[in-house]
């Protein structure tokens, strides 16, 4: 029963995309994936996703650190707030960014329809991944080891590089990998604000609307392969996909 449900909803449709993409000559597939529009869209999407994975990894680790090791009033509230991007519909996130950085921005910052706003949207949407992946590891981390290192004369830089970072590395990497995968396919938060910046998912959407399912399927296949690569990489890291 479970297999049937998974097949009807997930596997057969995804198989249909793959079949649609490969049921053409290799040269036509190649042409659809490497034409200037697709290539540009893939380059922008991958570039933005990489930047967000790195920046989100660093900032997420700092946020997790402050939430675990620091104590200040309102901390529980901040901690609850981290999950907001999971709870808030992505279109609302997009609309808020339009309000903040759009034509009638209250601060006179006009980022809408540029690549910068794509980064902000993606950082918003993927914020919880790294924080929620690093937080539990940091909680479990034995502070006695750090104290021992300090008593042996290690300064904070050495302690962080030799003791804290190695322990956190798998969690940071798996959180960043998840964020990266999410960015590659993201559309909801971007659909209102990207303007003419072509990202891969919007090119696919435009192809579907134009009645060109084969072109859409070809680009989709590239995205699916990327997703599978990320999935495999995460299995290697022993990470789990979480909410």
């Amino acid at each position, binding site marked *: 029963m479970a297999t049937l449900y998974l097949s009807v*909803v997930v596997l057969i449709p995804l198989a249909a995309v793959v079949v649609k993409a490969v049921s053409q000559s290799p040269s036509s597939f190649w042409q659809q994936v490497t034409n200037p529009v697709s290539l540009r869209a893939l380059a922008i999407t991958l570039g933005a996703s990489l930047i967000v994975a790195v920046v989100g990894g660093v900032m997420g680790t700092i946020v997790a650190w402050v939430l675990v090791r*620091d104590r200040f009033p309102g901390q529980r509230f901040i901690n609850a707030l981290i999950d907001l991007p999971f709870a*808030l519909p992505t279109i*609302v996130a997009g609309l808020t960014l339009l309000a903040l950085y759009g034509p009638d921005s209250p601060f006179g910052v006009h980022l809408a329809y540029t690549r910068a706003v794509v980064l902000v949207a993606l950082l918003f949407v993927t914020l919880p991944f790294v924080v929620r992946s690093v937080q539990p590891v940091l909680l479990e981390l034995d502070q006695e080891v750090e104290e021992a290192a300090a008593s042996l004369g290690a300064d904070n830089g050495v302690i962080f590089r030799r003791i804290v970072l190695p322990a956190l590395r798998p969690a940071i990497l798996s959180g960043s990998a998840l964020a990266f995968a999410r960015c590659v396919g993201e559309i909801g938060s971007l659909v209102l604000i990207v303007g003419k910046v072509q990202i891969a998912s919007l090119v696919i959407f435009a192809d579907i609307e134009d009645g060109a399912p084969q072109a859409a399927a070809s680009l989709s296949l590239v*995205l699916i392969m990327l*997703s599978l690569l990320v999935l495999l990489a995460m299995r290697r890291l022993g990470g789990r996909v979480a909410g």
Partner: protein
Amino acid sequence: MLVSRRAKWSLRTIALVYLLLLLVLPVVVVFAKTFEHGFSDAWGWMTTPAAISALWLSITLAAIAVPLNTIFGIACALVLVRRRGRLAAFLDAFIDLPFLVSPVVVGLALTLVYGIHGWFGSWFAARGVQIIFAVPGMALATIFVSLPFVVREVAPVLAEVGDEQEQAAATLGASSWQTFWRITLPSIRWGVAYGVILSTARALGEIGAVLVVSSLVAGSTLTLPLLVYQRDSQIGAGSITGAYAAATELAVISLVVLLIMTLLGPGRHESR
């Protein structure tokens, strides 16, 4: 690691300013924009027939997707954790796919199978059932994107509680149904609840996949997120306020979701 006072304060400042700019400010702005022209104006936009029908459609889609995914999720988690074997390996390999595939690709995939020229679409069309560009297709899209949440929340809890109590119940003569209702389900209830909340949030907020398979007709195939999208792209007096009003409705729902998540959070960890 004993961080100096200055380092502690600067880290705290960096983290809080980052969160303020990234999370708090945008949400505040949506509320401000919604009520810019007064409460009654915003209320008017929230209670147009299109807005009410969009709210109902969003709730209906969640009401279809979440129960189905919950039943599937519990069954699937039981197979993954308790059975092992080939079926488990198969499920384990594919269960995360919906998280990793772009929502637009989901929409395309459903169109290729259930659309009028799709693999099964013509069979349904011959019987007068329209799936794509109608509510059934949107329900399928919603199920797709919210599928793994319950499994991924329940599986670790199930692994943690172990099966000793279930075995004890079985040796005392309980049927497998009795064991499930009396022993298994109560021990995983927090995991299930958390998974249900996450799936509900995703189901209510989904736009990418639903956008592809909806005909975007107000009153029949517009969900609340699609209404935001449509009103934003409309040119007309104040329709952007309408978009903000619909966004505020969604934001209020998600704040409630967040509150429930926070309340469930500790219970979820106790049961692990």
